[in-house]
């Protein structure tokens, strides 16, 4: 670091007035203790939440829970089988919609837009979309799809599209970041062999950024699959096995919402079971994706 910058930092730091050594040490000890305590508080709450979900959820889980569909309160054979199927289907369709578009947008940001003004605008809008409350995405889809279809109806398609909108900026930004990490020499040598840009991107850049991009997509899928708010006004929920995606569609998160708010103990019990499924699914996927990235194959990855 050059001396000029160093002196700037020292000026920023301001004068350090002499103070009793004892007081300073004591203060330092106090802050350190607080710091450790804060970390402990964070971990404590994490453990509390996870333990509650595991403990309460495990009691609800048995074979019928997976194989039967939602049932009225008091019924012996209620399960969340149809909700699992619905969540998986909507997440799958959302992924199919969001990944290609997100990847293309990421390619443009990293390969063509780079530091242009338009790229800056696109990045900013990506961040805005990422920060948009998911319930507003649901509202948007309600206004453009649910009430525009004839006759107006909730549908699994609408839910999947809402989830896809949530995924889109996540995929675009991670793709951009991962492609940017690919060394320029690779692009140059490929183009020196007269490879067109599109082939360079699709066959070489994607391959070398594969681990990072896949991790990013998996993390985005995990995050989206635990969302409730965007499904409230789009897919709603249903007690039946899905026959088509063109009608109200059962899903785990809305089931948790409706069952947890109900006054029936057996429904609440099942809500805990479904909550355990969602939490376990999301956490295992998230941890798995991070682990893949950590264990070597994540060449050119950030974390």
């Amino acid at each position: 670091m050059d001396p000029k910058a160093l002196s700037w930092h020292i000026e920023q730091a301001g004068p350090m007035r002499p103070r009793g050594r004892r007081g300073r040490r004591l203060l330092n000890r106090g802050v350190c203790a607080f710091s450790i305590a804060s970390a402990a508080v964070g971990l404590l709450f994490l453990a509390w939440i996870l333990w509650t979900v595991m403990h309460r959820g495990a009691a609800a889980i048995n074979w019928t829970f997976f194989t039967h569909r939602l049932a009225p309160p008091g019924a012996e054979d209620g399960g969340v089988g149809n909700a699992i199927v619905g969540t998986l289907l909507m997440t799958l369709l959302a992924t199919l919609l969001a990944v290609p578009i997100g990847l293309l947008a990421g390619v443009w940001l990293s390969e063509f837009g780079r530091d242009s003004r338009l790229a800056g605008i696109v990045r900013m809008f990506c961040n805005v979309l990422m920060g948009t409350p998911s319930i507003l995405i649901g509202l948007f889809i309600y206004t453009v799809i649910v009430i525009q279809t004839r006759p107006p109806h909730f549908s699994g398609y609408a839910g999947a599209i809402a989830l896809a909108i949530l995924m889109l900026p996540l995929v675009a930004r991670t793709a951009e970041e991962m492609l940017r990490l690919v060394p320029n020499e690779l692009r140059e040598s490929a183009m020196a062999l007269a490879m067109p840009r599109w082939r360079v991107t699709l066959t070489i850049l994607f391959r070398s950024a594969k681990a990072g991009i896949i991790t990013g997509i998996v993390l985005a899928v995990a995050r989206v699959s635990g969302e409730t708010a965007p499904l409230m006004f789009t897919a709603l929920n249903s007690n039946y096995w899905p026959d088509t995606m063109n009608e109200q569609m059962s899903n785990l998160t809305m089931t948790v919402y409706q069952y947890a708010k109900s006054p029936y103990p057996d429904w609440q019990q099942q809500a805990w079971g479904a909550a355990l499924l969602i939490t376990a699914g999301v956490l295992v996927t998230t941890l798995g994706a991070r682990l893949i990235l950590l264990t070597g194959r994540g060449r050119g990855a950030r974390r």
Partner: protein
Amino acid sequence: MELTLSIRRRGLARWKPAAGLLIATVVLGWAAGALESRGYPWEGLAAWVVSLGSGIVLLMVASGLLAGGDRVFRAVCRLAAVGIVLLVLAILAELVANSMPSIRKFGIGFLFSTQWDHITGHFGAVSSIFGTLASTLIAMLLAGPLALLIALFLVELAPPWMSRIVGGAIELLAAIPSIIYGMWGMFIFAPYLQNHIQPAMNRWLGWTGLFSGPPLGIGLLPAGIILALMILPFITAVARDVFQMVPAVVKESAYGMGATTWEVTRKVTLRYGARGIAGGLFLGLGRAIGETMAVTFVIGNNHHISTSLNSSSNTISSTIANEFIEATDPIYYSSLVELGLVLLVMTMAINVIADLWLKRLGKSMGAL
């Protein structure tokens, strides 16, 4: 001459699979619709998926096959990127369009009216905005300092192996779906607060006037606490990156002068990264302000303004979540959409500010 001919011929050869894909896309897309309308929904769905996939492959092949393949590829990529911008604008436009009846009826007064009465049809946003801001404020007051202290622990105090584990665990808080926070808050945390914490707070802190009223467990305070937990990992992650970005030389020279860890943090690290940390706080703010499910479970959903943290309240997002489905009356519906519009404008402003302040940091907010 020969060269151009051969290129053209090769180009022609590539047309065949592309034409096949084009036909497949059209046929399958049509078949999908037909199947679905005739009661073969699953076959219809499968056809849709294949049709979509072949369409995308087609796009890619098309971009390669044309003489200006790169230009097409570039244009397609650009379309996708610009599409995101258009999507955000479309969301904004759609919310404005749907809240028009309410905007026309109540005008600017919507933002200043405390009424929320769907029987007389008078709607105002004040109670929802108040609840949103109050719960967010509580969350920020709790999560801000906590996140900075945790970041300090991760960067300066903990040995690397512990830092990695604790840091990873804190990040897991962000992976837990918000509905789980809500359920835990309603069934576990609220009763705990009601029985063990709030009576003590009423006794010792009652004089502030912030804790009047019976402790119900639900209300502004638990909503704020749960929001704080939810945004904690975001602020911590940014703060940790900021702390790590301070050049070691600067810190070491301060340590060399005999400064303690706290002094280095306060006088060097925090000043060096003030902007980044502010950006991180805004990021957390943006998350907290729009959070729906967790808040809906514990805030009590009451259009009632009170300075007591024990009282039940509502936020913009919880109001929409609770009342939207029942809102059959056009003016009620459009008032709810206008509430959403207010929230959208708020989060947009916050995110743009966070974006500008984090830009210098080079920190992205992608999925990783």
